[in-house]
């Protein structure tokens, strides 16, 4: 019998690439975040409103991750910022290798902020380091206030929570107070923003946080 003690991380290959990306972005003074949510929470809408608010203030670029189609990249392209599309062809998450390839499609050296919009999924992307500075999780009021408890790993791994679609609060059975309580019980260090991509409420506060991170 030959028994070999291995003790190696299953995702070690991903982590090596992620660390390469992190040092590349750092050496270019680029602040990056990985934007995560379920499908339909408003990730692309938030990216659009963020671009509209920040475009004249700082150089932004976007990597769009989707299971199929480049529809989201088309939406971002119309706003006149550099965008690269990753189509995972059924894959449920982005990995660092996909992000490295996407970075070759844009001239990232001129950027100060890189937004990586992940595939809509609150489970699988949580464990994959993409080389980002931080993870931002987006939860919309239409999804219900129990989601932090149902997907704890995602909320534990993120440093920012955005509660989106707050303009719909009068019409949905959702308590922002409950979302906050549940999310903070899982991750007391979470910074929380409340936004609406329809009325732009909360967008300036969120964008000013990005500016502060990028200018650090």
């Amino acid at each position: 019998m030959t028994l070999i003690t291995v003790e190696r991380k299953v995702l070690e290959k991903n982590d090596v690439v992620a660390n390469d990306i992190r040092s590349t972005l750092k050496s270019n003074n680029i602040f990056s975040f990985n934007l995560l949510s379920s499908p339909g929470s408003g990730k692309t809408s938030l990216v659009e409103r963020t671009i509209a608010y920040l475009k004249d203030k700082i150089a932004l670029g976007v990597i769009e991750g989707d299971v199929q189609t480049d529809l989201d990249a088309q939406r971002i392209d119309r706003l006149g910022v550099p965008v690269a599309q990753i189509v995972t062809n059924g894959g449920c998450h982005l990995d660092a290798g996909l992000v490295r390839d996407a970075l070759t499609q844009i001239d990232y050296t001129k950027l100060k902020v890189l937004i990586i919009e992940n595939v809509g999924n609150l489970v699988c992307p949580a464990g994959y380091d993409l080389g980002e500075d931080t993870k931002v999780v987006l939860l919309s009021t239409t999804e219900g206030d129990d989601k932090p408890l149902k997907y704890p790993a995602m909320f534990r791994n993120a440093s920012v929570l955005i509660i989106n679609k707050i303009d719909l609060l009068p019409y949905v059975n959702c308590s922002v107070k409950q979302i906050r309580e549940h999310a903070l019980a899982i991750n007391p260090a979470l910074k929380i923003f409340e936004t609406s991509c329809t009325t732009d409420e909360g967008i300036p506060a969120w964008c000013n946080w990005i500016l502060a991170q990028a200018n650090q």
Partner: protein
Amino acid sequence: MHELSLAQEIISITEQYYSSDENERVKSIKVKIGKLQNVLPDSLEFCFNALIQNSKLERAKMMIELIPIKFECKGCNDISEPESFLFVCPTCGNSDITIISGNELTISEIEFEDSLTN
């Protein structure tokens, strides 16, 4: 279903330990999964078994050890094993804690079958 990607990574790491012996076969692989990792052991095993046909891993059994979540309170230094994902010290109510286990996702051991020629 990121278990499929994880099974592929596990196989690719295992392949690095193969010798040049074509008849060599892997008997078992021990994998540690922390409960914070969102990995379904049954799905991982299913994906692994689907990928190992006609290879040195074809008879390999994946043995999964589930690692509980444990954290240490930075206030009173108590170590707790929470039932849920609520990271609050049950002793003093402090939420400033350090996770000490539950994030594992590692291959710990690979065992090869005895060679028929030995």
